């Protein structure tokens, strides 16, 4: 056979050929463009349409933004400079407003000579929040995180150093009661005492104690009033306090809604549904108009604090629904397994149910936080000076009367950076916590 084969086949290749380049239509940019942009006539139309949209937007925005004028004292001066350089009918941005009002946009009307305090507070806040966000950092940093709220409060609002210290002491008392008195009087009694003792301390002892200490040792910073705080500082303070306070409250509400206890269950349901059924702006007006009706006559406390309370309650109802979804998504076996191990309710929740439920609900929780941060802009309607409120104030001044886009673009970009990075962090966390194999 092989001889026949040798006779019929004139030539047999005995070496391998080198690999050839793939044809031009199957490689490189050509293939990519063909597959991703021009694969069918619908795609061609879509590509042309999107190119037109991109061109239409960029051809207006890019020259406007890139040719913008950065140094001027007023809009009129901006226009003079524009007339000199580009001619009268050119449309260019006047970024000078951001440079000139930079401090106001960031700090509102915070005293200029005290700007170091919010800046330092912001840096300390980043240090405090870092060990919570990234597990690879040393755990000892969490001690600073615990102290941070009091330090930050003192730095921003100033006043005697004793007020935050005395308030913090209340938490120490509660902790001490649980740790030392708890074993002696039983768990339930310990918890009740740990709630009652600090409350009594704050109501009766804390005020006089702080005053007495302040008269003996007058250490403190110059006090700053809430209505002097504005701009992105205000948005950050309200947003961050709301985020930190609403998470535990939301979890408690979610547990309440899942609870077997009839009364607790119904109360949680009503609270959540009423809060969610009414827009935040109505709640904010309630805080500014009505809260004084519900409190003892003569009480009057800070508008900003009222707003923080309202924002916290509002977003805690949303977080409760997100966490409830997570709780409902857990297989029933997890609850039964926790019961079978003989864990009591709080232990089973803390050790078995909540870690899994919260992991599932991370995207929803972060979305709620992003929503809360964006909603801080609504405080402009009850007279607080958030960035949008400040943009109105800047426009009302004679120098910058008639300036719109530059401020809107700047504020929008700042919010975008904040919110987008929060969203990215949630994706990072999801990836890190994913345990099952994919």
């Amino acid at each position, binding site marked *: 056979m092989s001889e026949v084969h040798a006779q019929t086949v004139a030539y047999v290749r005995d070496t391998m050929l080198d690999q050839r380049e793939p044809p031009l239509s199957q490689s490189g940019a050509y293939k990519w463009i063909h597959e*991703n942009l021009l694969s069918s006539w619908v*795609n061609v139309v*879509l590509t042309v349409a999107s190119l037109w949209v991109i061109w239409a937007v960029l051809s207006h925005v890019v020259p406007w933004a890139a040719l913008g004028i950065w140094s001027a004292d007023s809009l009129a001066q901006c226009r003079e400079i524009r007339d000199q350089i580009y001619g009268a009918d050119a449309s260019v941005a006047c970024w000078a407003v951001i440079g000139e009002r930079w401090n106001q946009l960031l700090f509102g009307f915070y005293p200029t000579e005290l700007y170091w305090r919010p800046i330092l507070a912001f840096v300390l806040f980043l240090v405090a929040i870092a060990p919570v966000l990234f597990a690879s950092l040393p755990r000892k940093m969490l001690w600073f995180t615990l102290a941070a709220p009091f330090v930050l409060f003192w730095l921003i609002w100033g006043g005697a150093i004793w007020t935050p210290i005395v308030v913090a002491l209340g938490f120490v008392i509660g902790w001490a009661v649980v740790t030392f008195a708890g074993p002696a009087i039983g768990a339930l009694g310990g918890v009740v005492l740990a709630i009652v003792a600090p409350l009594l301390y704050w109501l009766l002892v804390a005020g006089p104690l702080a005053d007495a200490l302040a008269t003996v040792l007058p250490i403190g910073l110059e006090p700053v009033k809430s209505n002097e705080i504005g701009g992105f500082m205000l948005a950050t303070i309200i947003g961050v306090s709301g985020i930190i306070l609403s998470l535990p409250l939301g979890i408690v509400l979610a547990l309440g809604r899942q609870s077997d206890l009839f009364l*607790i269950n119904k109360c949680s349901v009503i609270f959540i549904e009423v809060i969610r059924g009414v827009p*935040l*702006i109505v709640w904010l007006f309630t805080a500014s108009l009505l809260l004084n009706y*519900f409190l*003892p006559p003569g009480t009057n406390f800070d508008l900003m604090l009222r707003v923080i309370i309202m924002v916290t309650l509002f977003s805690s109802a949303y977080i409760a629904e997100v966490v409830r979804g997570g709780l409902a998504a857990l297989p029933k076996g997890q609850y039964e397994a926790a019961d079978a191990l003989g864990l009591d309710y709080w232990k089973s929740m803390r050790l078995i149910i909540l870690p899994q439920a919260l992991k599932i609900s991370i995207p929803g929780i972060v979305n709620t936080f992003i929503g809360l941060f964006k909603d801080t802009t609504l405080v402009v309607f009850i007279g607080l000076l958030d960035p949008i409120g400040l943009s109105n104030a800047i426009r009302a001044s004679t120098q910058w009367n008639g300036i719109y886009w530059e401020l809107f673009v700047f504020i929008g970009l700042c919010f975008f950076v904040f919110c987008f990075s929060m969203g990215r962090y949630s994706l990072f966390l999801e990836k890190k916590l994913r345990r099952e194999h994919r």
Partner: protein
Amino acid sequence: MTTMTDPPGQGFRLSQLIYDTRYRSLTIQVVAMVLLMLLFSWLVSNTIHNLQNLGKDFDFGFLTQPSGYDINQRLIEYNSQMTHGRAALVGILNTILVAFLGCALATVLGVVAGVLRLSNNWLVSRLMSVYVEGFRNVPLLLWIVLIFALMTESTPAPRAFRGDDATASMLFDAIAVTNRGVYTPAIHFGTPFFANGFFNWLVVILVLGASLYAIRRLHHWATERQEATGDRPTTWYFTLGLLILPTAILMVLMSAYLNLPELKGFNFGGGIHLRNSLIALWLALSLYTGAFIAEIVRGGILAVSKGQTEAAYALGLRPSTTMNLVILPQALRVIIPPLISQFLNLTKNSSLAIAVGYMDVRSTLGGITINQTGRELEGMLLLGLFYLVLSLLISGAMNIYNASVKLKER
């Protein structure tokens, strides 16, 4: 033989209330109840004291008093001589109007953007990502004021449309976009059946609804016929006729004509005047919510596994049939519940109308009425109740729809 499981008979001890799980839940609830009652009575007594101190009472009588303020955007007859209650109703209708328009446009935008974001076309999907991320991460309030500024600052004044050297022109000679709002043609009736315009439109809507119902019956009949004989009768010309003819005949009977906007004096007259406040609010709400809906739609389509499409193709179904009968019914099940909450969000966000001066219920009942009468407590209570009822209604209606597309499990 005696069983050892029964504990020795002991009376009820008080400590059982805390340590016995049978009674503990009861104890906790009673304590919670008492605390709650105390809190409530404290709040109520505070309120009563405060009201007394201010010399106010709790009374809804202000709703029947003349309001004394005007509302520029209204769906029903209203003037400043009418009552606060009527003003609140105008506001309620305005809220419902913008919520309805917003939900409709947001759904369209969201579905288009969500589907396009999954497109094979790299450029289109990136463009949609930019849209979604851009709108989701910037406060709605900023979008509202931005679009409002765009509408008032970048559009021509009515006088730009005047004369031979007009710098601006109307779209199709029918729609004028000016800095005072958009003027569109309106349909007027020459020989209306009723003096009140509202009833005429009700008749039109009823006829249209009857047509749609008849078309549905026709399709039902065609399907039954197909199942019985295997042939589907051709129905499209019946469908078209049923859809158009009755309404057209009605329009001719009432001699309907288009009332085009035209320049009169310093402003446009005739047609429908959509104020910038309404348009800015509507567009901003729709674009913002549309970005969220796009993500929901994308997630819903991705949630249907690829095997479903492949199985449908293996059965020989065409792509359009596959989409209608296989993919969409399954995707809708995932999409509907979050879509409901987006509609609710849009409705509640419409209260941001305050930023552009659109007269919704928060601006009339919760704004000017409260300022004029000093009835904060009653006004805010009614306002909250309205939003609560509206939210519950929307979620109730959508839940019924949700139940109809839900997976029917045995």
